[in-house]
């Protein structure tokens, strides 16, 4: 997966990530980023999680299907997403924190569209009552 794993960056974010998933977030390595360049297979806009499946070619000519988990549409909408922000066939770059086992799955950090526009998540409301 040489081309798949374009970079693993130590972010020192461990312990700062709230529980946004319905499952435990401990499976993800929050200290690493993996950059995926590929083609969207599916984008599902639903609760409790939106997900993206991306076909990513590796340096051996294989195509690896990566699963990317995102937060719920409620919070994606507040970050500028729409249900049609991406669609099957779109060429995208997705940055994720991968699962620790090396399997092709990760939790979403950032998406870069073919035209260069970027989409991120905003956190679910954090902090006190005045936080927006």
């Amino acid at each position: 997966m040489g081309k798949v794993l374009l970079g693993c960056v130590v972010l020192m974010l461990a312990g700062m990530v709230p529980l946004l998933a319905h499952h435990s977030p401990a499976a993800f390595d929050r200290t690493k980023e993996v950059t995926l360049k590929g083609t969207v297979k599916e984008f599902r806009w639903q609760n409790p999680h939106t997900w993206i499946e991306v076909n990513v070619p590796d340096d051996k000519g294989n195509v690896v299907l990566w699963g990317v988990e995102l937060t719920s549409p409620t919070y994606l909408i507040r970050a500028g997403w729409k249900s049609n922000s991406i669609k099957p066939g779109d060429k995208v770059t997705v940055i994720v924190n991968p699962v620790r086992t090396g399997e092709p799955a990760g939790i979403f950090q950032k998406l870069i569209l073919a035209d260069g526009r970027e989409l991120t998540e905003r956190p679910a409301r954090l902090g006190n009552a005045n936080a927006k």
Partner: protein
Amino acid sequence: MRSSLSRIALAIVTAAGVSVSACDATAPAAPGSAPATESAAPATQPGVQLSALAPANVAKSRPAAPFDLTGNWFIDTTESADAWRFGPPYPKLTPAAQVHFDASQKAAREGKVYRDDIGQCWPAGLPLIMTRYWPMAMVQIPTAIYMVSGFMNSLRIVYLDGRPHTELDIIVRTFNGESIGHWEGDALVVDTIGFRGDHHWMDQGGASIPAGEQLHIVERIRLINGGKQLEIEYTMTDPEHWEGEWKSMKRFNRVDDEDIQEVSCLPDLNEHLQSTTSKAQVR
């Protein structure tokens, strides 16, 4: 396990409607006046517990509630993103719980997740359902508080109509238990028993402490900061799994710009969230 949002929504809508009726009917009925509705009839039958939504129950004379929790509430994470957890500190565990706690710590050190039943679509249950990263909608009427979590639409009902707990030999055990509340000064004290003792945990990942059938939770709830915040003091016992009282204080912020939505753990959810079927999962 699947949510029944339509029924829950109907309950809330009904509750809200009844609440208005109850407010309109705060004055005692005139002596000799006819029952408000035919549904009052069962009240005359001994041994029958009126529904919390029965108009005859809602309209009963009782002291005014010190505050109204109606609203959407979200765990306050000002001090820590881990505020959803109820520890550390943890109480002294029994051997029956320690084995699971140690296994989850070992799994965490190995980058794995021990028995994440919530991730496998089992209900979070009390107390974790209160602190998920989705708002909790609450609708209060004189006889009950209906709580619906934005997380899997988990339903919790706190009865305020003076009913006792159900006898343990007929209670239907659930993940949120059976909650009975009463008012003490400026606080609502909620007593909850009747929990499921399987696939029910006090934490999710790294500190796996089971919640058993003997789990007993007392919540002392206050509305603070001019109604902007909810404060809940938890006192939890479960002699099968820890010694003494496990105490934790949580604050929740009122959310006025967001409603909960229909959320279900559908069969295809985890099929597309590879982390839930990953080798990182220890069952």
